[in-house]
């Protein structure tokens, strides 16, 4: 059902400071899904929360056909939230565990992007790197209302305070957006262990010079973050849209394009805290 072939690569690394890796990544090229989560906990279970999120979202989304996509994604996120809350109720040592999530779901000519927290998705298209998600973070809120400048945000002590995470509440939902995909696009999902340390220009440079070799690009992004201190766990998932298969018949392609949800269904990157 997917008209575009995808190529994927992913890496997750403990970094150079933390004792454990509490990130989780799951990718499935054939299923058209990439999911990345950055777990956190009051005591224990950060890794548990992250793994529940990536595994459950991958399993759910890979088998769905992309109709009523916004409902499917919202339900899937709600189910993950429930699963984390339930797990913490049955095992009290895990109470207070939560996770960020960013997911990219490729169906037909479109990608559905959903996220909670400060894990991000970037799109690299025609040499330009564009951030597709707006962090649910204290610093982002300060930027939105103007109480902090972007240079202050960069060095803020509050950099790691996030305002939304799965597992914290009975009703936590993702921000959703839907976009057309093009052959040659590269999508990067990453945890803050990357974007906190490696600036956009260097991320773009890595994707520009290495994208024919996604595995090498993924490894290199992790190296770059480690060379800048590796202060946190570092995770990346890369998805490249390969050229359309020549076997796809124009008529069939058009029919499916019409069947998929119209653009702007989710609204593009709404202002979060207006």
């Amino acid at each position: 059902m997917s008209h575009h072939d995808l190529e994927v690569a992913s890496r997750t690394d403990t970094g150079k400071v933390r004792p454990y890796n509490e990130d989780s990544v799951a990718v499935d090229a054939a299923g058209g899904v990439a999911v990345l989560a950055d777990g956190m906990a009051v005591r224990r279970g950060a890794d548990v929360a992250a793994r529940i999120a990536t595994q459950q979202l991958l399993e759910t989304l890979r088998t769905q056909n992309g109709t009523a996509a916004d409902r499917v994604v919202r339900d899937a996120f709600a189910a993950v939230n429930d699963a984390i809350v339930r797990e913490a109720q049955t095992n009290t040592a895990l109470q207070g565990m939560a996770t960020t999530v960013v997911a990219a779901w490729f169906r037909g000519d479109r990608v559905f992007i959903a996220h909670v927290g400060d894990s991000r998705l970037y799109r690299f298209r025609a040499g330009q790197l564009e951030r597709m998600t707006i962090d649910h973070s204290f610093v982002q809120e300060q930027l939105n209302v103007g109480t902090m400048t972007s240079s202050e945000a960069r060095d803020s002590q509050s950099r790691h305070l996030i305002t939304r995470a799965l597992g914290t509440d009975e009703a936590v939902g993702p921000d959703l957006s839907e976009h057309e995909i093009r052959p040659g696009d590269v999508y990067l999902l990453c945890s803050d262990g990357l974007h906190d340390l490696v600036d956009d220009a260097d991320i773009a440079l890595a994707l520009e010079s290495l994208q024919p070799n996604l595995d090498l690009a993924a490894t290199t992004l992790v190296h770059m973050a480690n060379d800048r201190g590796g202060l946190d766990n570092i995770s990346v998932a890369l998805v490249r849209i390969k050229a359309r298969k020549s076997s796809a018949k124009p008529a069939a392609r058009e029919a499916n394009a019409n069947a998929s949800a119209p653009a702007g269904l989710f609204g593009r990157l709404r202002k979060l805290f207006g």
Partner: protein
Amino acid sequence: MAKLVISRNDTLLGSRFIEDTRLTIGRASGNVIQLDDPAVSKLHAQVEVVGNDHILLDLGSSNGTFVNGERISRHLLRHGDVVEVSEFKIRYVDHRTVVSGDGDRTMVIDRPVAAPQSPPGLVTSAPIPAARTSRVNYAQGMLRVIQGGTIGSEVALTRPLHALGKDDNRAAILRRLDGFYVARVEGLPPKVNGKQIADGWQPLHNRDFIEVGGEAVQIWIDKTS
């Protein structure tokens, strides 16, 4: 907990924890930190609390507010900063940095956190925050072109990656802390000193010759970096 340690001419005058959402500094008696000196304005400067951060603002003082020798109007305080108001030196000590060093742990907060009103003159749109500033001592080196370009020309390796080759045969050089590496990106593997390399990043040594896609370069690595 962060505090301000006030001294004058190397004499310690006192210290004050930053507890409220706003701490004022000036000559007038209502200030939290009162500095009795004619060169200090009545309302000279203030520290605002934004989440876990402390932002120092000059309140249009006559003689200015300086941080680490530079005149500021607005400044995010970092541990060890020295604020100068007239002859007074106010050192910013951030115990969270000193004691826990745990500023890199991700946490969820329950909003709202103390957020003062938007000060005038700040951009209200939300630019993408750049990655954190960090000083990194990368290896230093340059390439000398042997073939496939201006022969003999030199290219400083000032960015993390440098692309080599063309068309279907491409490689890249990666700059890291401990030196430089080369890897095949696509097509035939590059040759280092005449030998094809294995996949993945392979370490380079000073004066190695690298050939890929009709290009040949020699790397010069500065060991003194």
